[in-house]
């Protein structure tokens, strides 16, 4: 497959980014613009509420998901003490979702972190050194890209076994190629620029050039990509949970809750509705913020 086929497209449909424009925008200005960007602000707001609720909820209302109350199963929403009702174990649905938040968010965060830590250096090395290093890394990327993310993640989890750590690895691996592609493209351009050539002429070691001049200047598109990738990672991770291959119960991870709720879509459709809505909201928020970041950091597409 050719390099043109942007790695980001499968997950995000993002257009190629133009970082030279981005580099001109300072961080504080970018933040101010982001807050004035309508959809990005909405996304940030949703994320803020999520994080606050996910942190405060479990603190304020201690909750043990392994504890059940069989006399109160399948209560409808709106009962006193149970705003969203209860599930098949008589557990409070709202508390379940609040407690599940940290699993879902940290799954996404850790998976993207793997993508960044592995993908960004590989992309920079590939673009900077060129030659056979580039060829090897690019063919490797082609191979990883050939598998649909969910299939790659499923195959990995099938082998590694379910659980938080393995889901993070599986989803992380499937988000690596997007970062390699992105950073490589930027590096190819940056390495020809005067300030990088100057550093090289002054005898700076390649590692330092890569870190201080190349990666530092390619940060803007990486941030955009990482934000959008968060949404996608959450979708894939929750998909694994949905099939029972993710975090295992009684941990109330949203995908797992949704998967279990499949058994109750007639008797109690709310059990499938709320966790799905929560996943949808989180992914939407990351996508909105990512779009906003792209608009702000890359005014050409605004």
């Amino acid at each position, binding site marked *: *497959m*050719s390099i*043109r*086929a*942007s790695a980001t*497209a*499968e*997950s*995000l*449909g993002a*257009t190629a980014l133009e970082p030279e424009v981005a580099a001109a925008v300072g961080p504080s200005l970018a933040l101010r613009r982001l807050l004035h960007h309508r*959809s990005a602000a909405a996304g940030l707001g949703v994320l803020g509420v999520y994080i606050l609720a996910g942190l405060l909820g479990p603190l304020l209302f201690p909750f043990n998901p392994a504890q059940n109350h069989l006399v109160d199963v399948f209560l409808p929403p709106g009962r006193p003490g149970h705003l969203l009702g209860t599930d098949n174990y008589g557990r409070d649905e709202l508390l379940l979702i609040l407690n599940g938040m940290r699993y879902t968010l940290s799954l996404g965060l850790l998976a993207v972190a793997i993508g960044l830590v592995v993908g960004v250096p590989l992309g920079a090395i590939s673009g900077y050194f060129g030659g056979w290093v580039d060829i090897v890394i690019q*063919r*490797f990327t*082609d*191979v*990883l*890209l*050939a*598998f*649909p*993310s*969910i*299939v790659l993640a*499923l*195959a*990995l989890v*099938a*082998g*590694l*076994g379910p659980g938080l750590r393995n889901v993070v690895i599986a989803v992380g691996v499937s988000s690596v190629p997007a970062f390699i592609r992105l950073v490589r493209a930027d590096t190819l351009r940056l390495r020809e620029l005067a300030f990088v050539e100057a550093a090289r002429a002054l005898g700076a070691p390649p590692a330092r050039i890569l870190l201080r001049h190349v990666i530092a200047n390619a940060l803007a598109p990486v941030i955009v990509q990482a934000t959008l990738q968060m*949404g996608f990672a959450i*979708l894939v991770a*929750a*998909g694994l949970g*949905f*099939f029972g*291959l993710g975090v295992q119960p009684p941990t109330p991870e949203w995908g797992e809750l*949704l998967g279990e*709720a*499949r058994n109750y*879509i*007639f008797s109690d*459709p709310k059990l*499938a*509705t709320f966790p*799905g*809505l929560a*996943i*949808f909201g989180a*992914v*939407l928020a990351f*996508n*909105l913020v990512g*779009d906003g970041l792209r608009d702000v950091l890359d005014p050409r*597409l605004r």
Partner: protein
Amino acid sequence: MLTYVLRRFLVAIPTLWGVATVVFIMARLLPGDPARVIAGVLATQGDVDRIRRQMGLDQPLPVQYLDFLGSLLRLDLGRSAHTNAPVLEEIGSRLPYTIELAFVALVVAVAIGILAGVTAAVRRNSKTDLIISSLSVFGISMPVYWLGLMLIIVFAVGLHALPAAGADQPTSIILPALTLALFSVGLIARMTRSSMLEVLGQDYIRTARAMGLGSGSVIFRHALRNALLPIITVIGLQVGSLLGGAVLTETIFAWPGVGRLLIDSIFFRDYPVVQGLVLMFGATFILVNLLVDLLYAYVDPRIRYS
């Protein structure tokens, strides 16, 4: 043109080889003894040893690897541990369903996606644009497995209007195809919009408009045609996400395609079938994108000489 085609083929070969190698390594890294899994819980040690010999698992790894590549060249993917039928036959009997589903979903997604994207671009910053853009973000943020459940609740359970599962009725395909299409609709609409915006801003379009060409003609004969290249790329890449989405959609709607086969095989620990399917997913993606590249070169001759 011919040398270009050849060159693209030659680049695809190492990628296919890489895909095969990754699958081989993944299968060998898995914990547990595949021979024991295939032999079943009640098997004796003798059964396990026999299966191990049959599968060549008693050979050193490099020999296994060469055997594996050799049988791939002969299109021999082994036999299913669950049904004992050849893996190729298992996949072959399910593949038409997935192709049907993915094709219908792709047609729906391309038709709606391009139309929505063009409309949004032409009426840039209008209310229509806002609505289309918002819906597109909604589309790509929607968990397909959730959407599928919600559609079942509304159309199958609530309204009794459409089948909830299976593939045995003419209307069976509607819900799974819609579910599968939605993600791609959002993606294609977004791509079309930004691609169109770029083209619409270019000089020759302005010239064409200035020369008095009707706006419909400008949009469809000139702008869209030029915006089409990146859109084709995205559609090519959609094959990957459609196949991925098929895994989820087919499972929810009991659609008898390869996606559901993958999930079933994972749960049965039917490693030969899982291995064969992962290979097939990878190879399909590479070949489709090879075709897209060639199509691209055909549409835009500049590519060939770069």
